[in-house]
């Protein structure tokens, strides 16, 4: 569903990503792990068009998208929930969710009715968001903002979802909640590329995983395979 081939990208003149290739098959959860600064976020940004790759190809559902603007890639079915959540602080929880579905809703009138069923779906997944639906998103707790960021990405009914460090800055108990949400999404058949610091938990939900180091993919394989790799054990699962 998502294929990245020989991707090179960076900021200004410094190249951060060197020859990244990875694949996320339809209905699978793929984890991308690696130390701080390895280039995981940069990889996601290069895929979603927030950063223009210098070289390489990105295929979304068979379509070459690396030349496109981020908003166009999003409209083609990629939902990127960015590092740091980036909810629209001054807007209400519900408006944030509605905007998640922007690309498939009418622009002026009737968008609420059209989105009602999907809104209920997200509220069923995150009842806390329903309680706070009229509250400004910026006043939510970190955990709630993460739920909102995930819900907002789901609202677009994406073909592929990128989720960058959903557990960042959250208390352990909330982190567990985030992972149980991811497991539930997996049961619904979501196609997901997940970046996580908690490599252990990430490998538990993933079908396949890539390990990055200094801008390159250094190891890849199934979680079972990675758990037996000494380098992975030493660096990430110790």
């Amino acid at each position, binding site marked *: 569903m998502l294929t990245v081939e020989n991707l090179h990208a960076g900021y200004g003149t410094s190249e951060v990503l060197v020859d990244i290739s990875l694949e996320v098959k339809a209905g699978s959860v793929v984890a991308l792990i690696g130390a701080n600064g390895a280039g995981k976020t940069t990889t996601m940004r290069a895929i979603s068009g927030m950063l223009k790759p210098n070289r390489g190809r990105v295929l979304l559902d068979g379509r070459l998208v690396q030349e496109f603007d981020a*908003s166009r890639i999003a409209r083609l079915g990629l939902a990127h929930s960015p590092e740091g959540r*980036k909810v629209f*602080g001054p807007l209400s929880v519900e408006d944030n969710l509605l905007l998640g579905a922007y690309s498939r809703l009418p622009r002026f009138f009737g968008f609420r009715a059209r989105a009602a069923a999907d809104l209920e779906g997200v509220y069923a997944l995150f009842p806390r968001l329903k309680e706070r639906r009229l509250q400004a998103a910026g006043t939510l707790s970190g955990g709630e903002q993460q739920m909102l960021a995930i819900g907002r990405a789901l609202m677009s009914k994406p073909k592929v979802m990128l989720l960058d460090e959903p557990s960042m800055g959250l208390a352990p108990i909330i982190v567990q909640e985030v992972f149980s949400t991811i497991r539930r999404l997996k049961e619904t058949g979501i196609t997901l590329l997940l970046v996580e610091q908690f490599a252990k938990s990430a490998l538990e939900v993933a079908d396949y995983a890539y390990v990055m180091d200094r801008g390159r993919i250094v190891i890849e394989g199934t979680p079972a395979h990675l758990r037996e790799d000494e380098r992975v054990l030493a660096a990430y699962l110790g």
Partner: protein
Amino acid sequence: MYTLLIVQLAVSGALMGMVYALIAYGFQLTFATSKSINFGQGELVMLSALFSLTLIDSGLPYWLVVPGGMLFGVILGLFVERAAVRLSLEQKGEGWILLTIILGLLGFSAAENIWGRDDRPFPTPIPSDPLHFFGIDVTPLELSVAIGVLTVMGLVELFKRKTLLGKAFEAVSADRDAAQLMGISATRTIQLSYGLSGLVAAMAGILVAPITTVGPTMASVLILKAFSVAVVAGLDSGFGVVLIGLFLGALESLTSFYLGSGWREAPGLVLLILALAVRPNGVFGKASIRKV
């Protein structure tokens, strides 16, 4: 009796101040989405007023002149965005500052050549015989300014809150990158904000024209005060510009009564200087104000 005179002056001034508020609101609209403003906005006000005058001269009824002039303002706003702003924002540069100033100067020359240098009256069907409220005289013309300003601002705010496109506008204002990830095109939204900004500027021109007369220089003073109002009120509160606009208008009217009409422009300038002195970074953010 004396108090009544003071109130009278304050009220008339405040009603004029609504025009500053509307122009300042136009600055807010583009600043919200793009952190840029059109420094030739005064010329946009003036050109739209002159165009509307031409529509009147050609025999169009007033109720068609208003939307016609506003449409012209939208077109000018879109033109400014395309010609002076878009490329410079794509390169994350500040070129829009100089380019919008230059476009304004071009607009000024164009106006002198097309319409001549003279100030001309702007006929309006709205009467200027005063109405009396509790001993205060207000002309329907002055009232039409206040009503027009509040209506236009109210409609734009309604658009922003009630339609999905309007919410997208707010999303781009809050976080441009995240908005793009929702499939919202930042470029289109900025374009929309310039169109709306042109619309409210044109409306300001049409509303004020019967009071100030129309000519190439009509907006040079107006724009300075609108700028003061925008800087003092901040660039994110539509409610704030109305309050500051009312306040500045009243203050000007009283100043010119007590100190003589030569001092009329002083409060706006003093307010601007104070605002910049108290908030040295200014509301336009650090980078741009240094270069302005």
